[in-house]
């Protein structure tokens, strides 16, 4: 019987070789493909299963990972989630990552090149890979004040330090709570994500920097004025400001707000035009200056250029080659002129900083798990859109807006505020977008701010930047000055 036993042992060997091949097929040949299968939650576990660094504001971790007893090992906690959501974004096993959780991902999860030495020492110490902590430029206090001041309005607030570009507050409403997306259930996270996506108010969009851009309305007059100063105008230069401006090539005319006249005669100074936000004056000024001059002034402020703060900022837009009536419309921030709130905050910032525009940034410092500094953002100049003299001249005009113009609601005791209102028509039957951009103190600014309230909040057709947005800006400026005094 030994011969058949020997043959049987060959059969046995064949069976085992088959098993070894199939095991190799699964664990080696097909391993990557199976690992990428979206039904394979292990890949998620690996990705989500390590300690992720915190996001820090004013020394407090607004986002942090805490150990939990489930397969993901750590739960991402968003303290005050809705307040910071536009900046932090979410980190979810369902829809993935967004905002800083996305842009700073490699630092947060510890895989960034900058953390190579940290990883190496972790390897030798046999400890788990840990992410770096990301410290933001935001001020918890300014952020909170801006959030509260914006109330239930749809809109955004951006505040930055004109001297450095450090962003002090970035609020967007309506917002959402990233905690709800951080649940450790893919189906639950996806369900909540879908409902946020489907929300007509788009809570997932950070209105301060992207998604939609908005017609800046009269706030764009700052750019036109900058172009005019560059072309040799002064605040005292008298310009044409009729009650009703005939637009060339068309039968249409342009009016001022409420159909009023800008002054007793058809001629007023540039300063007066700014102070009362005279549409006919700026429309005719724009046509006199010509589109290229305005276009170049706007580009110097950042229009048309993408920006990474490190969140991606949607470039603000200008019409390509408008005809004369379109230039007139564009001169008052209508037609195809669009801007993000951050862009308008940058305009205010550059004017306040003597004509020098600092690059806006959100991340101040990145520290490795041992709190050693890995990266520190150095303030840098983005452009110089104005001469110091022109900046000073514009500052005077903006102060006039607040002391006795359309922006009196932004007046602060003991602090000279320089500001500009904006009320952008959005079409028949819908309330205008209202703006206020400002910086303060006018002589030595520590904060520049832009406030946008979509569709005038609850004031409907009566809404203007002066009534709706200026009071919000005032509160933010007040808080920022208090904080900056503390910090300095």
């Amino acid at each position, binding site marked *: 019987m030994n*011969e058949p036993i020997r043959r049987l042992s060959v059969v046995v060997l064949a069976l085992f070789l088959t098993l*070894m091949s199939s095991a190799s097929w699964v*664990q080696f040949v097909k391993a990557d493909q*199976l690992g990428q299968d979206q039904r394979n*939650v292990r890949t998620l576990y690996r990705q989500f299963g390590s300690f992720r660094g915190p996001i820090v504001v004013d020394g407090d971790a607004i986002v942090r990972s805490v150990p939990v007893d489930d397969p993901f090992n750590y739960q991402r906690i968003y303290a005050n989630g809705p307040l910071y959501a536009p900046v932090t974004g979410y980190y979810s096993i369902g829809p993935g990552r967004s905002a800083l959780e996305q842009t700073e991902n490699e630092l947060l999860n510890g895989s960034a090149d900058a953390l190579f030495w940290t990883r190496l020492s972790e390897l030798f110490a046999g400890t788990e890979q840990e992410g770096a902590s990301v410290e933001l430029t935001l001020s918890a206090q300014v952020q909170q004040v801006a959030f509260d001041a914006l109330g239930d309005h749809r809109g955004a607030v951006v505040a930055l330090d004109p001297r450095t570009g450090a962003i002090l507050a970035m609020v967007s409403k309506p917002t959402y709570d990233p905690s709800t997306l951080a649940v450790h259930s893919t189906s639950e996270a996806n369900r909540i994500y879908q409902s946020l996506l489907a929300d007509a108010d788009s809570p997932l969009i950070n209105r301060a920097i992207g998604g939609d851009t908005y017609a800046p309305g009269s706030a764009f007059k700052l750019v036109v004025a900058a172009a005019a100063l560059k072309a040799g105008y002064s605040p005292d230069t008298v310009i044409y400001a009729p009650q009703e401006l005939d637009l060339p090539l068309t039968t249409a005319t342009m009016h001022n707000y409420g159909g009023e006249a800008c002054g007793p005669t058809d001629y007023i100074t540039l300063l007066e035009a700014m102070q009362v936000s005279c549409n006919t004056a700026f429309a005719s000024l724009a046509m006199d200056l010509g589109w290229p001059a305005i276009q170049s002034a706007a580009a110097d402020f950042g229009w048309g250029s993408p920006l990474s703060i490190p969140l991606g900022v949607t470039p603000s837009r200008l019409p390509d080659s408008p005809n004369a009536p379109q230039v007139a419309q564009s001169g008052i921030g209508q037609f195809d002129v669009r801007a993000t709130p951050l862009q308008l905050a940058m305009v205010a910032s550059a004017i306040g900083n003597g004509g020098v525009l600092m690059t806006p940034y959100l991340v101040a410092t990145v520290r490795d798990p041992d709190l050693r500094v890995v990266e520190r953002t150095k303030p840098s100049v983005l452009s110089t859109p104005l001469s110091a003299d022109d900046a000073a001249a514009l500052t005077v005009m903006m102060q006039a807006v607040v002391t006795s113009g359309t922006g009196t609601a932004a007046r602060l005791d003991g602090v000279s505020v320089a500001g500009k209102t904006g009320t952008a028509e959005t079409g028949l039957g819908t309330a205008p977008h209202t703006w206020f951009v400002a910086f303060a103190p006018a002589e030595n600014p520590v904060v520049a701010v832009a406030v946008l309230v979509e569709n005038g909040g609850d004031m409907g057709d009566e809404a203007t930047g002066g009534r709706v947005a200026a009071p919000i800006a005032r509160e933010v400026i007040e808080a920022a000055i208090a904080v900056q005094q503390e910090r300095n």
Partner: protein
Amino acid sequence: MATVHEVTARAGRLSEASLLVIAVGITVGARAFVDANAGSGIDQSLAVYTAAVAALAIGAHVLVRMRAPAADPVLLPAAFALTGLGLAMIRRVDFAYAARGRDTDFGTTQTMWAVVGVVAAMAVVGLVRDHRLLRRYTYTAGVLGLLALMLPLVPGIGREVNGARIWITVAGRSLQPGEFAKILFVIFFAGYLVSNRDTLALAGPKVLGVRLPRPRDLGPLLVVWAAALLVQIAQRDLGASLLFFGLFVAMLYVATQRVSWVLAGVGLFAVGAVVAGTVFSHVGSRYEAWLHALDPSVYDSGRSYQLVQGLFGMASGGLFGTGLGEGSPGLVPYAESDFVVASLGEELGLTGLMAILALYLVVVQRALRAAIGVRDGFGKLIAVGLGFSMALQLFVVVGGVTRVIPLTGLTTPFLAYGGSSMIANWIMVAFLLRISDVARSSDLDAPAGAPAAEART
């Protein structure tokens, strides 16, 4: 390893002792990793465990060397190492389930079963001094085997789990009598075949050039075998039907050396498999889950969920594994029993799985070597039957998990959670130790280097 060499005379006491030290090291080391990485850290319970494992190993070693001095020195350590790895992985799965909010204590239960298994095996080695005595109980074994197989069908004690009615409940414990029926049938087949193999092979009419056996010679064998298959089909125990069929064909072939019967058997099996797939919906759905496992419609229906989760686990283990206690075996349903191989593949990697398969291969080849070495036909058939059934069982389980064949429910010898399987497999080891002792003692008498004489009847 494709050919089996003749055994040279060697007592093997030292080899067994040193291999046991390694096996105990693997057993204790694996548990230490599990405790450190997945549990609450290493504590004094590991010391208790180490002492118990070492005591069991020393006890088994001493008893085997006293009662079966020439027994194959590789069998005991290999079975020990496999059992130890299984215990560690089952404990690890307990931790994994606990992390998912499921409170299980498979590890402790299985440790107890492992002790019972080793003690039972030692009792067999101690009590059964000569395997040839078992031949007296050929028909008793056949009848007992059938009865054991049918027990789960008895109302009151039988229990159905996941569609298969193969469990009985005795004194609050679940038993799978089929695991023991496997050994009993091996004894019956061996006893019957060794008595009738000449008449089976030589007598009978010739049809189309193939000599068929006389019905009265093949009859009892066919009755028992067909009854067993019918019972298993009634119990929806697909894996066991496949195992018994293969075991029967292999033993018949070894006894009669008739290749034509093997081909007939394989052909019959193929027809049976196709018919079963069309007739029985539960078989058809197994085929579907096997062939189109990753197909979203099949996966979403849940039919291939377990299989695919197991594949994901093994894939994430890759070449070197996540490390014991570092993977997520708890995601796979039945990670402690049916899919313990996937759990091991995930945490020990392809490397670890290959090592485990190699351990099995060593056990099976040693069984076949004992079969060649032993002189009596009964002993040969027993050793072949036990060895081949282990190989085939492993093929059915691991092949099912790695998608070589459709997934069926069979236990992985030594590794999977389950007391019946643990005890039965250790008793199989005991028989193999006994037969290998006889095989190697006869070598001791033979002149060195001379091939062992074949036992021709």
